């Protein structure tokens, strides 16, 4: 579905061609193609179990695909894994750091394993600590760190080898909103420095914020791709969102029937009606008139562009949260997945 260009190798830092992977009967990935230009952020969006982590594990040389091939900076991940390992940094939803070691010891250890030599390993550790604001906590054991600090240290560990390509597997899953904003700003800084990033996320807002280009994957297949704006444009219309006093929700819903160009969505919990519209300004004026005539004063009323959550819903017919607790996607962190889940 995602057409790579006629010269697939040119300028692409990450190339994935026809990758498939099954675990027993389960098809985790089915013929996935992705091409990521150097210095950009590629979003990989999908719900739990969509196949995101499987693709990450293949690119990080942790798992061999059944078919297809993948290259990092032109180097085949299966034919020359050690070169690929020297080019990538991996940070995940699980902070893969040693709890009994200090932050600094963790980073120096990783540096030594890159065979940087004692002096350089120390210097790189220091650099990472400074970059991620962990200098003060550097000599404390990691078990005293907060969840956000651990995640930052994990990201720091992936930077010690100065990777060209950073693979971030749900880097903010489970983090509080403030810490997520911090992580986003670190990631933006890295990209500004020329690093290419592959970012998997189930937070649609995250891809919207960080990614130049995104693919949406569901049940192992790429179901859409484009920039955030392109993905939203595919949904077409803008939305009118009306919030009314709860007691007047039914009355308002009935009154507004006929407005817009699609079925309205009713959110009972928030007494909110969302209506797709094709002629935003006229429809908004009409809605106002109707509400005024009916004597309903909205609590809130406005036009908004569809979110990527709306895009996912329209592409798959399911909300991203369907297989999880019913919770607003962009604000409620999920419990971390087992690091080794297959998909």
């Amino acid at each position, binding site marked *: 579905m995602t057409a790579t260009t006629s010269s697939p190798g040119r300028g692409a830092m990450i190339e994935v061609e026809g990758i498939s992977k099954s675990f027993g009967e389960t098809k985790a990935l089915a013929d996935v193609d992705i091409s990521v230009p150097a210095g950009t952020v590629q979003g990989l969006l999908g719900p739990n179990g969509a196949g995101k982590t499987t693709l990450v594990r293949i690119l990080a040389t942790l798992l061999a695909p059944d078919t297809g091939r993948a290259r990092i900076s032109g180097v085949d991940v299966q034919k020359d894994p*050690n*070169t690929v390992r020297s080019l990538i940094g*991996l940070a995940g939803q699980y902070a*893969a750091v040693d709890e009994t070691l200090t932050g600094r010891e963790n980073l120096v250890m*990783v540096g030594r394993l890159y065979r940087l030599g004692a002096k350089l390993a120390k210097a790189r550790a220091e650099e990472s600590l400074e970059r991620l604001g962990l200098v003060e906590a550097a000599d404390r*054991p990691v078990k005293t760190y907060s969840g956000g600090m651990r995640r930052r240290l994990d990201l720091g560990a992936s930077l010690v080898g100065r990777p060209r390509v950073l693979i971030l597997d749900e880097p903010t899953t489970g983090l509080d909103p403030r810490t997520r904003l911090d992580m986003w700003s670190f990631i933006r800084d890295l990209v*500004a420095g020329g690093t290419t990033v592959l970012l998997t996320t189930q937070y649609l807002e995250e891809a919207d914020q960080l990614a130049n280009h995104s693919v949406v994957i569901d049940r192992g297949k790429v179901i859409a*791709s484009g920039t955030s704006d392109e993905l939203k444009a595919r949904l077409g219309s803008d939305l009118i969102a009306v919030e009314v006093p709860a007691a007047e929700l039914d009355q308002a819903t009935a009154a507004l029937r006929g407005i817009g160009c699609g079925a309205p969505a009713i959110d009972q919990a928030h007494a909110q009606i969302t209506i797709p519209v094709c002629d935003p300004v006229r429809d908004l004026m009409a809605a106002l008139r109707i509400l005024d005539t009916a004597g309903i004063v909205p609590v809130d009323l406005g036009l908004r562009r569809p979110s990527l959550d709306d895009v996912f819903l329209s592409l798959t017919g399911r909300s991203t949260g369907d297989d999880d607790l019913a919770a607003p996607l962009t604000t409620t962190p999920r419990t971390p997945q087992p690091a*080794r889940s297959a998909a």
Partner: protein
Amino acid sequence: MTAVPAGPALPPAQPEELTAIEPVRLPRSAIFADALVIARRNLTRIARTPQLLVFATIQPVMFVLLFRYVFGGAIHVPGISYVDYLIPGIIVQTVVFGATSTAVGLSEDMSKGIIDRFRSLPMSRSAVLAGRTIADLARNVFVVLLMIVVGIAVGFRFHNGFLPAVAAVFVALLLGYTLSWVFALIGLTVADPETAQLAGFLPIFPLVFASSVFTSTQSMPGWLQAFANVQPITRAANAVRALTEGGPVATNLIWTVLSSIAILAVFAPLAVRRYRKV
């Protein structure tokens, strides 16, 4: 469907990024250097969680006290005082139980994603296991010396001279190191610390108790004796006992050393293969 867009203008490449990619070839020395880094990390962990080491040593000390003072009076092994019979067996039991910590430690690293981190680094594929088993060996050295001290406190004595005593310690440690690789394979396969603990103890329990560790196999029923007399833990216990207390040693010693090497030759490659694919 959509062609990948050109994206925003690329940021100016750093000079180092313009250079061609040099293929990374691990030097032959990588396994030693990397294994030392990993061993150091694991030893630091042991040193910083002394309570774990204390609990790990309380169990064998309890066994010493239990068999020396509770059951010992009822156990008669001809030709040797029971405490001299018991302590060499306890040393073997200690290294064997100690080896299960390799399984627990590795499965813990796996469940926390640390193994994934190591596997994504351009490091030797054998180093994580080599480093882990070396650290567990160092831990076993400490526990064995401690058990000798405890043994001497309850009346145990070396009756066969210094060098054979040193050799006895080496034989026990060799067995422990060998079994560490078996448990490395178990730990990587079960990938969950609690299961690893169980999966480690289950095969070890009958091997340790149906052996000459606590009492002579002569008093066991015939069918059990047949098993107990040939299994490696009896061989190792007899070898260690002969080295500390005297008596014929050659058969059991050669058997223990050769079987250890054979176990190592089979399980080390299997464990590394497993590590590559976890």
